[in-house]
């Protein structure tokens, strides 16, 4: 009979306690102005919301966090567009998906917070404050970043940083011609402590190449209707390629 300890000692223990110097997960340079630190602080909880563009912003956070080999997970997001995520830089083979955790979502997030560095979660309609508190504490202990997707207020606890996407304007689509090509959005951040000051950036999400980019000329008044800007003249020919 072999003692359990003998087997335990085969593998370096896999605790996720962050090491000094790796307390931050990388973030896209265009999003850096929104954060109090030059990256996502491990152990923190973020929320991402907005009428349009929240999912893309979430993918940007995941993609950047993966840059140094980290794994991420998405829980309760059955509609996540994987092709769009991949174009925004998400490594699909390092992204665990639990599209339908059912009633055990809190348990699932608990396991994932132990094993990956960033967990995106869309809590079900009603989220118990006790679950939220426990998961927040666990993420802090394990050094994982939790990103709550969905309308603000789904998460009964205060979050460290709130990101909100607004004023979406599409370019490339006309009335009966063109195709969707790129979208400009504004992202606002607010939060607690160091993040208390409101900040905002404008960016292309997606940019014409499918990624995210700084809207360098963000002050240019955009013609057309909110939500969709008709510059179909440059919209290209709708040939399916």
């Amino acid at each position, binding site marked *: 009979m072999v003692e359990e300890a003998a087997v335990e000692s085969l593998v370096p223990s896999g605790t996720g306690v962050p090491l000094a110097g790796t307390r931050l997960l990388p973030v896209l340079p265009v999003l850096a102005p929104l954060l109090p630190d030059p990256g996502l602080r491990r152990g923190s909880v973020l929320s991402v919301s907005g009428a*349009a563009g929240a999912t893309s912003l979430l993918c940007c956070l995941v993609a950047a966090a993966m840059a140094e*080999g980290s794994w991420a997970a998405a829980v309760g997001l059955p509609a996540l567009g*994987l092709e769009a995520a991949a174009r925004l830089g998400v490594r699909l083979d390092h992204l665990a998906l639990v599209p339908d955790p059912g009633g055990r979502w809190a348990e699932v997030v608990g396991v994932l917070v132990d094993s990956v560095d960033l967990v995106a979660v869309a809590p079900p309609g009603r989220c118990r404050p006790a679950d939220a508190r426990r998961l927040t504490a666990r993420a802090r202990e394990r050094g994982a970043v939790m990103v709550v997707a969905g309308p603000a207020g789904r998460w009964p606890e205060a979050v460290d940083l709130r990101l909100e996407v607004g004023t979406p304007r599409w370019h490339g689509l006309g009335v009966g011609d063109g195709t969707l090509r790129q979208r400009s959005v504004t992202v606002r951040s607010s939060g607690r402590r160091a993040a208390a000051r409101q900040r905002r950036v404008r960016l292309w999400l997606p940019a014409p190449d499918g990624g995210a980019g700084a809207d360098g000329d963000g002050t240019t008044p955009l013609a057309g209707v909110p939500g969709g800007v008709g510059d179909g003249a440059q919209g290209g020919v709708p040939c399916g390629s």
Partner: protein
Amino acid sequence: MRVLTLWCPDWPVTAAGFEPDDPVAVVHANRVVSASAAARATGVRAGLRRREAQSRCAGLVVVGEDLPGQARAFEPVVAAVTALTPRVEVTRPGLLALDARGPARFLGGEGALCRRVADEAASALGGAGARGPAPGVGIADGRFAAGLAARRGEVVPIGANRAFLADFPTAVLGDPELADLLVRLGITTVGAFADLPTPSVLARFGAGAARLHAVALGRDEELLDATAPEAEPSAEADFDPPVERVDRAAFAGRAVAAELADRLGRQGLVCTRLRIEIETEHAESMVRVWRDDEGIGAEAMVERLRWQFGGWLSGTAAGGVPTGGVTLLRMVADEVAGTGSRQAGFWGGTSHADRRAGRGLDRLRGMLGPGAVFTGALAGGRGPVDRARLVPWGEPAPGRPELPWPGHHPLPAPALVHPAPLAAEVVGADGAPVTVSARGHPSAAPVRLSIAGGPWAEVAGWAGPWTLDERWWDRRARRRRARFQLVAGEGAHLCTVEDARWWVEATYD
């Protein structure tokens, strides 16, 4: 379940027409896969290189491996045992299994059943002129233990698996890497491995080892999460005119197999027991059941089909040689299992982060079952739903098809792809629903959009329709659709019109 296993020792040698006294080695890819008793006595072992085997045994006869030939030679045995009980599963040529409960009751006990099966098999082999060692027959709970029981010719009593397995070396579990590691830890027998606490085995060696641990405990049946599916997934092909040649039928079988494997794969399943039914124009039929606990993929299905044809045409099956061309070919997944449990463990992964994630996901899969934890992979296709797929955790990701897909929806890719399209209504300026003519012209410009019965939103911009006529060569599978991009309210959507009904397929969130 009580399983009877019949095992023909050194079947590749016997099937090649040699006797145990002949020094023979069967070689595949320059490695020995099987050796006769005489060759083994001189030190020839499976796994040796051909040159090395020849140097150990002077006068060694080396023959290439001929699996179809082995299957053909095994057919008389399968036919003889099938005459006793219909549910005979062939694992590979030389090894078959059957559910012992019914026939044992009928023949007056498990011992009697073993003797009867052994006699039938021996006489079938004798009749076919094979001169190999007598087949071994054994009964135990579950296939794994039954396989070992057959080697010893034993009937293991009900519930005695663990004691029976305890003395075998860990190598019989069939995972050389794990066996090697266990031996270095001082765990040399299956019994000692079974004594380890299950949670530690799972945590430290991964899911693959946990599966073998359950096998060692004699509980392989429970953990083999194989079930008989409610509606048996199947695929078939009708031939009109009948196909007269085996190679052509096998070629058609390739498409059938691919369809079945693909359908199972989408559900995260793999076929562990495959039933192949062949019928001829003269209403002759040949049914065989094939088993592989590791899962039978499309290629393996075709291989089994070839074996089955070979056996039938050899004329040793009951009913003789078919007299007409093949009119029907059907493959049925008789028993399926989640692909997850069939994965070589994450053990031996790369970085620390990978191992940590792998362990966590193994744990989640244990918690939620095989069809709940996925990673993603890009795939080819024309619609957003087709362009990515979920790969059940543990299954190897498919290669990315780089083929062009003319007609796929324009970039950018939508960030939300609705798992089930949302019903929508789109009306023109006159309030009438917008339709698309057969020539691909919209009846009016879309003006307002309502999703799933929600409030109306003004359409601020739109483009399309891009018509899509898929599978037009197949009357039943044909789909004609038209796609639009619509911007309404704050959202942009990819919509589809099919049969005058609107759906929101994806949203550019």
